[in-house]
């Protein structure tokens, strides 16, 4: 693979002398990039000049943060690497939230940033920022390229690092003089990453131990995270659940990896997860974690988490093993490859008493809301959306109550169907994410289930959807509050609603002003009609649902409590 530029025996042809900008664009295309997101600026002008007639579908957001979320959601929806370009200084700084979002949820994004001329670096030049310094904690890897000869190799390395192992964002900072400098590029400079190794194949002995533990278990639970989706292992996990006969709960990011229509589905677990999932996890004798990381929103109080269970943990990241929870049988490697091996050794077991118990819990503690209410219940909007889209839409979300209701009441059946900021919890993610997902999947119905406060943060990107004719849909569950904050204030701060109220614009008017379609829905009886109109719309469309203002998300494991100490179960039982 390795060869130094200009040392091959073939004479250097005119066409292999390129500028840095040309090398970047050529290497992007070589890496299979046909779509990218970006915002121009001073020091990236040479690069944008090369992009002027490059065969790349280019989406220009209204703000770099939005662009970074778009690239992230594009990656989540397509399984490919999302690419974002920004200028130096403020442009690069605006990527931070987007990179951190992608980092926490292990999403492959390559960000290219311009930098001031090499000789100005460190001089507080105009639009200079220490981009690699600022973004180091929020990227899997980053670097600055100071020699044009290193550009092609670095871009190749960036794609490799972003997309392999535990995926994540990679940033390359490129001073403008490097982008205009020339060198010979024959497209053959290989990667040089002595410190980067990815273990994909799981240890055979560990896999056999895991299979034996599964075969022995009376009360197993399969706990599936976003890693299964990024490893494209959903088919294998479904086959495992079927062959070994296992109940399956997923994290927020794992939704869609298992068909929620199946009786074995325990739906989502955690702070606002299903009571039946939380009970089953707490009572299981074997927890089989695949591509999940025992986040605090999943485990509740760690000391009392799974008191009687052995733990199998399948993950590509060795650092995830025994980080939060002691693991008995770790298997490090690619989830798809490992589960395929595991499948050969597991046996079917009926586990009648266990499944009976689970069925009873499911019956008793199903997600419910007051259907008789005269107001629009936010859960009703999501449920109606799930029904009208036949559970086939790609759903993006904001963060907070809207996100939890989307997770609880939309029935996910396929991987890459829910696109949500799980780890970082980035408000404002929903709209740009919908745009990125729609770019990746032009024929899919993409709906952002959002909150008013989340939508407020990035609604400027509606103009982007209009510019590129992206028929995204937005359902704003508008309660006039930062709903989840208000819920916590109601429950834990004596209903002192400190700074959790915003005066909102009329979203339908905003949508129309931006060239999209705007609908207001303030009557419960109009909800089905409004959703139908929205889904039939060929333009970007925003529906402002004026929902019940003080609705809470139930059940809820209060912070610091055990996973099975849930509030709100009495409310669910009353609603049977």
């Amino acid at each position, binding site marked *: 693979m390795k060869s130094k530029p200009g040392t091959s025996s073939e004479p250097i042809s005119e066409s292999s002398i390129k500028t840095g900008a040309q090398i970047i664009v050529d290497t992007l295309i070589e890496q299979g990039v046909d779509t990218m997101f970006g915002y121009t600026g001073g020091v990236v002008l040479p690069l944008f000049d090369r992009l002027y007639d490059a065969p790349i579908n280019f989406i220009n957001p209204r703000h770099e943060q939005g662009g970074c979320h778009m690239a992230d959601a594009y990656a989540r929806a397509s399984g490919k690497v999302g690419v974002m370009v920004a200028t130096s200084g403020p442009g690069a700084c605006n990527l931070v939230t987007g990179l951190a979002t992608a980092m926490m949820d292990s999403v492959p994004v390559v960000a290219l940033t311009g930098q001031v001329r090499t000789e100005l670096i460190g001089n507080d030049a105009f639009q200079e920022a220490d981009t690699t310094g600022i973004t*180091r904690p929020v990227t899997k890897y980053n670097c600055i390229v100071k020699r044009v000869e290193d550009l092609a190799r670095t871009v190749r390395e960036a794609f490799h690092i972003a997309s392999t192992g535990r995926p994540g964002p990679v940033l390359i900072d490129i001073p403008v003089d490097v982008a205009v400098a020339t060198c010979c590029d024959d497209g053959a400079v290989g990667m040089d990453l002595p410190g980067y190794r990815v273990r994909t194949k799981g240890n055979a002995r560990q896999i056999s131990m895991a299979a034996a533990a599964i075969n022995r278990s009376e009360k197993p639970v399969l706990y599936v995270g976003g890693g299964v989706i990024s490893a494209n292992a959903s088919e294998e996990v479904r086959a495992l659940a079927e062959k070994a006969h296992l109940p399956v709960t997923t994290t927020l990011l794992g939704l869609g990896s298992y068909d929620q229509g199946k009786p074995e589905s325990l739906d989502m677990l955690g702070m606002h997860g299903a009571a039946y999932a939380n009970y089953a996890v707490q009572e299981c004798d074997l927890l089989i974690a695949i591509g999940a990381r025992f986040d605090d929103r999943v485990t509740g109080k760690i000391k009392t988490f799974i008191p009687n269970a052995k733990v199998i943990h399948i993950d590509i990241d060795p*650092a995830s093993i025994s980080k939060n929870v002691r693991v008995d049988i770790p298997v490090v490697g690619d989830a798809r490859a490992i589960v395929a091996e595991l499948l050969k050794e597991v046996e079917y077991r009926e586990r009648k008493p266990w499944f009976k118990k689970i069925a009873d819990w499911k019956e008793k503690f199903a997600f419910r809301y007051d259907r008789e209410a005269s107001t629009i219940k936010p859960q009703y909007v999501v449920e109606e959306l799930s029904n009208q889209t036949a559970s086939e839409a790609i759903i993006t979300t904001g963060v907070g109550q809207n996100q939890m209701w989307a997770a609880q009441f939309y029935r996910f059946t396929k991987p890459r169907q829910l696109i949500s900021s799980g780890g970082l919890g980035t408000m404002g993610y929903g709209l740009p994410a919908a745009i990125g997902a729609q770019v990746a999947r032009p024929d899919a119905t993409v709906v952002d289930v959002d909150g008013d406060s989340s939508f407020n943060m990035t609604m400027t990107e509606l103009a982007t959807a209009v510019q590129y004719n992206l028929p995204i849909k937005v359902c704003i569950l508008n309660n006039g509050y930062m709903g989840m904050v208000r819920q916590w204030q109601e429950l834990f701060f004596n209903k002192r609603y400190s700074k959790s109220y915003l005066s909102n614009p009329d979203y339908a008017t905003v949508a129309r002003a931006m060239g999209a379609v705007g609908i207001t829905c303030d009557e419960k009886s109009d909800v089905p009609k409004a959703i139908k109109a929205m889904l039939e719309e060929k333009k970007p469309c925003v529906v402002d649902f004026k929902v019940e203002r003080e609705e809470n998300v139930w059940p809820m494991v209060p912070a610091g409590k055990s996973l099975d100490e849930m509030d709100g179960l009495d409310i669910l039982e009353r609603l049977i």
Partner: protein
Amino acid sequence: MKHIISALVENKPGVLAHVAGMFAARGFNIDSLVVGRTEDPKLSRMTLVVIGDDKVVEQVRKQLAKIVPVVKVQDFAGQPVVARDLMLVSISAPADKRSEILSLIETFKGKVVDIGQKFVMVEVSGPEAKIEAFIDVCRPYGIKSVARTGTIAMPRQTKTEP
């Protein structure tokens, strides 16, 4: 417990910042950190002394290994190693105490590297405990300043020092 962790890293800008940043971000404590070149110009060696229980140190090791330009990580706990610190110390040494101090230095196999009118500068190397002991015995004379490297270490072939 104290662990000596040795990390072979690519000799690239930003690697030290990445390692130090990871420690800060994850709340790990570094007791000492030494970076130096190796026999291979493309690689540097970082030697870190970390205090923590086994769970913490396991995370430190894994999180270090996860950093892309970190090539290899070893935890020397539980194996025979040669571990050394180097110290320069400037000690107050008036004429009437000088011979006493010089004999102390000799006991510790230290080396006088500078003699002024009021102070002597001494170079001492050895295991950390020896360095600490030397500081303790010098303290009554008055220590002007201390510069220490932190620990470097290498596993040994034989069980004990010859």
